[in-house]
C-alpha cells in the first residue's frame, strides 16, 4: 500500500467495536429472511447475539480466596455483592426485547408513517449443555397513528421477504442442535474456558483486554472496548456468579465509567445508569441500566450517535433459573 492510502487509513482510524452490532444485524436479517433461509438457530436474535452451541456451565463455586476489600464505585460494588448472591439454577436464561424503527415510509399520499416492530428473543442454556432459543414477533405499531388511520388502518405491510403485522406471531421454542462456543471479545470460549474466567477483577480486566486484542483492536483502542466487553459477562454470557461479580468490580474501578442514580429503562423500570464512551473523542456512548439491588441488567442502549436515534436492547430477564424452557410469551 502506498503512502496516501496509509494516510487515509490513519485518518479513518478504527471504528468503535460494538459487540452487539453483529447480533442486531443478524436478528434483522433473520426476521426478514426466516421463511427462506436456514439460519443456524432458526430464531431471530439469539444465535447472533451469543453464538452459542452446546454448553456446560458449572458455576465455579468455592474457588475464591479470602477477598480483600474492593475499591471503586459503591453502587457497582453493591451490584457485585448481589451478583455473587444471585440465585443459581439449572438453566441460564436471557429474555430480550428488540425494538426497531424502520426508515421506510408506509402509506400513500399525505398519509405516510413509519413503523416500529419488536421481537421477543429468549435463550436457555442447561447445566448439562443443551441450548434452546425462543422467539416471538410482537405487533408492529405505526408511529403516526392518525396518518395510519387516514391511510385506511392497514394491519399488514410488506417488508422485504416477510411482512410486518399488527397481529403478534406465535411464540416458538427450538432446541439448538450441534456444538458451539461462547463469543467473548474476539475469542470463542469453550464452556470450560468460560467457567475458568478469573474471579479477580484486575485479572478479569486483563483477560478482557486479551480477548479484545484477539478481535484485532489496535492497542490504543483496547481500553475503549473494555466496558462493553465486561458488560457481555453481566447479562449475555452464562457466567458464574463470581465472574459476574468480578465484572461489576472491574467496571467500578474504570475511570471512564460514569454511574448515575435515578435512571429508568425504556419499560419504566428504575435502575442506575452505567455509561461509558464507546470511542474516545466521540459523543457515542454505551449505557447499561442496572438494578443494583439484584445485579440484573435491565437494558443496554447506545446513545448520542450523530444523526441517529438511540438504540435500545431491553433485557426482560437474565439469570440462572429452574424454570423449564418454554416458548416466549408477553407475560
Amino acid at each position, binding site marked *: 500500500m502506498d503512502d496516501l492510502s496509509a494516510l*487515509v487509513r490513519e485518518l479513518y482510524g478504527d471504528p468503535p467495536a460494538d459487540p452487539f452490532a453483529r447480533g442486531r444485524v*443478524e436478528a434483522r436479517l433473520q426476521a426478514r429472511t426466516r421463511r427462506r433461509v436456514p439460519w443456524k438457530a432458526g430464531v431471530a436474535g439469539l444465535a447472533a447475539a451469543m453464538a452459542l452451541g452446546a454448553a456446560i456451565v458449572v458455576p465455579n463455586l468455592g474457588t475464591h480466596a479470602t477477598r480483600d476489600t474492593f475499591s471503586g464505585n459503591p453502587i457497582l460494588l453493591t451490584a457485585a455483592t448481589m451478583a455473587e448472591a444471585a440465585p443459581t439454577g439449572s438453566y441460564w436464561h436471557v429474555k430480550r426485547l428488540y425494538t426497531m424503527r424502520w426508515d421506510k415510509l408506509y402509506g400513500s399520499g399525505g398519509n405516510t408513517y413509519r413503523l416500529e416492530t419488536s421481537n421477543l428473543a429468549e435463550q436457555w442454556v442447561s447445566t448439562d449443555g443443551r441450548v434452546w432459543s425462543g422467539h416471538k414477533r410482537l405487533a408492529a405499531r405505526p408511529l403516526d397513528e392518525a396518518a395510519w388511520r387516514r391511510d385506511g388502518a392497514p394491519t399488514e405491510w410488506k417488508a422485504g421477504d416477510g411482512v410486518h403485522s399488527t397481529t403478534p406471531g406465535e411464540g416458538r421454542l427450538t432446541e439448538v442442535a450441534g456444538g458451539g462456543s461462547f463469543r467473548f471479545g474476539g475469542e470463542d470460549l469453550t464452556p470450560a474456558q468460560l467457567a475458568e474466567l478469573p474471579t479477580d477483577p484486575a485479572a478479569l480486566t486483563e483477560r478482557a483486554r486479551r480477548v479484545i486484542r484477539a478481535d484485532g483492536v489496535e492497542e490504543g483502542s483496547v481500553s475503549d472496548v473494555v466496558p462493553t466487553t465486561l458488560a457481555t459477562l453481566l447479562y449475555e454470557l452464562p457466567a458464574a456468579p463470581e465472574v459476574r461479580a468480578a465484572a461489576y468490580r472491574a467496571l467500578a474501578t474504570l475511570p471512564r465509567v460514569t454511574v448515575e442514580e435515578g435512571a429508568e429503562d425504556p419499560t419504566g423500570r428504575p435502575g442506575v445508569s452505567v455509561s461509558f464512551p464507546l470511542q474516545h473523542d466521540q459523543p457515542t456512548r454505551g449505557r447499561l441500566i442496572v438494578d443494583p439491588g439484584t445485579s440484573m441488567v435491565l437494558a443496554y442502549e447506545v446513545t448520542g450517535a450523530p444523526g441517529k436515534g438511540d438504540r435500545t436492547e431491553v433485557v426482560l430477564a437474565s439469570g440462572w433459573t429452574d424454570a423449564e424452557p418454554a416458548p416466549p410469551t408477553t407475560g
Partner: protein
Amino acid sequence: MTAARIERPPDESLDDFPGVFDAHFDELFRYVSHRLGPAQAEDVVAETFLVAFRKQARYDPARAAVRTWLYGIATNLVSKHRRAEVRGLRARQRHGAGGNVPGPEERVADRVSAQSLRPALAAAIASLGRGERDVLLLMALAGLSHQEIAAALGISYGTVGSRLSRARAKLRAALGDANPMEADHG
C-alpha cells in the same frame, strides 16, 4: 486474499446465506462504519445482505467473488447517504483525529506529522466526486485491487485507474505544502 480468519473456498456460493453473513459481516461492517459511522452502518450492512439475498439469482461468480460483490452493494448503498458521510468527514476535519488510532511507540513521529494533515485530508475526501471517493476508499479502507473495484462497481478497469488518479491528485493538492509526503509509513 491473505489468510483471513474465515477462509472461503473460491467457488463460494450464496446457497449458504448464513455462512456468507458469518464470513463477511465483520469486514463490511468495518468498511461501512468507517464511511458512515457505526449506527448508520447497522442499517446499511443489513440492507447490503438483504439486497444480496434478493438479487442472488443475478450474482455471477465468474465476474466477482462474493466478497467483491458485497462491497459493491454496500458502496452503492453508502452513496445514498452522501450527506451523512460528508458530515462525518467535516467532524473529522474539526476534531483532527478520526478517532482512536494511537499505535506502537515507534510510529509516534510519523503519527504527529500525519495528525497535522488530517483536517486537510478530511476536507479533500469530502469534496471528492462520489465515484472518486468510492474508488479511493475501496482501495484504501477495504484493500480491494483495481480489478476487484472494477467488478464491485461495474465499471471498467480503466475507469478505476482514472478515478483513482484524479482522487490522488486532488488529495495531494489539498495536502500541498502541509506535507512533503516523504514519510512512507505504509
